[in-house]
């Protein structure tokens, strides 16, 4: 597991692929798709629980990356986590029947987790799952309700019957537990 500050060759590959995309190279898009479609599709499928809808999200995310590759700034983070969050946001839009954004978000997401390499990716995924398993069930549940179901703070409190303050604390503590595991 490499951390922030280490220049992984594959990270450079991502930046090179994005540069080729900017130049209109369709094969670069195909390479990126082969590398990261599992990330985007997995997240979308988890949110939507519907393969057709998840495929639509995959199409939207990659097509918009093709149209606006400048939305991803390789200097401020890595592609896989960025795509994962974009996929989640798009899937939540579908879930909530909101009109999808015209363009992809330019969110800086600077996690140091190496995801470009297939083996490192599997390792990271296993590690995240391990951390989540170790969280108290109530805590994991509220995190997942917020992230994968797109529920708001008060909606979660209403559904779980927990006080707003408890929900808030559980969400932050859960996120920090993940951060600590990859520090």
């Amino acid at each position: 597991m490499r951390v922030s500050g280490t220049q992984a060759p594959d990270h450079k590959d991502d930046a090179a692929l994005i540069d080729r995309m900017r130049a209109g190279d369709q094969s670069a898009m195909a390479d990126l798709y082969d590398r990261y479609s599992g990330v985007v599709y997995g997240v979308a499928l988890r949110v939507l629980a519907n393969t057709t809808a998840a495929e639509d999200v995959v199409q939207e995310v990659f097509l918009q990356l093709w149209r606006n590759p400048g939305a991803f700034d390789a200097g401020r983070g890595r592609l896989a986590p960025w795509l994962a969050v974009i996929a989640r946001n798009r899937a939540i839009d579908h879930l909530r029947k909101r009109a999808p954004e015209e363009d992809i978000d330019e969110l800086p997401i600077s996690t140091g987790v190496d995801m470009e390499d297939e083996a490192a990716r599997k390792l990271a995924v296993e590690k995240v799952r391990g951390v989540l398993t170790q969280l108290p069930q109530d805590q994991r549940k509220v995190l997942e309700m917020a992230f994968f179901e797109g529920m708001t703070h008060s909606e979660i409190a209403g559904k779980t019957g927990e006080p707003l303050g408890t929900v808030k604390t559980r969400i932050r503590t859960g996120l920090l537990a993940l951060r600590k595991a990859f520090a």
Partner: protein
Amino acid sequence: MNGHPQYAEALALYALGALDNPRELAELETHLGTCGECRRELEALRADTALLALSAVGPKPPDRARQRLLSAIAAEPRVPKKAPQPYTVGRLRSRWFSFAPVAVMLMLAVFSILLGFQVSTANREAKAARAEVERMRAELARNNRELAQNKAIADLMHAPDAWHVDLVAQHTRPQPQIKTIYSKQQGSLMLTATSLAPLPENKVYELWLLPSDGSAPMPAGWFKPDNNGNGWMYHAMQSAGINAKGFAVTIENAGGSQTPTPPIMFAPAPTG
């Protein structure tokens, strides 16, 4: 994050898009506008949410999804914007070598003219591109200056040692005053208050936007002045585009109200 622990939990909700209390949201966004430390923490929390997303990574989409994407991309190829390249010379040269020398000379002459035209076009485009880059650079510099100035103003107003000095005509008492700035397009407003009367612990001043269509006053944020009677507030309305004919301020219970409680303490100054 050590600097502003009062925002720590709201930031985590914000990173997930789960913060749904409008007042808390507006307050946090105002704070994020001036606090680099909290912006960095927000970025770190977004990275944490990305880790959460990884737990769902697994299956690959069916092959048809790949084909669908590549077909869509092929249908809208993006042509890179580049100046014409001199490589055309070599390509043309090999084609023309099979002609008779005279024809070659003639065609080379024509080609030279074309090439000259092409170079001239390329030069013009390059010059235009340079001008555009310069224009964007100047605009960026201007935006940065404005941003720095806005940040400096916000820092000044937030500074714990900020000393508000009101200068008034001699031998008169300072008058309580509230100033508001409202942007209909942005759907946001800012308020500064000076020399306001102190309030009991459980009371606040609340601002009301008075819609020009005569509908009910809309809550536009509340604030509590400091011990010197000074305060400020930024508030984002629920939506942009609301036409306002004026503003008013009442005293409400802590936490604000949805309807104004008479009497009106402040109203727009008469004009003219």
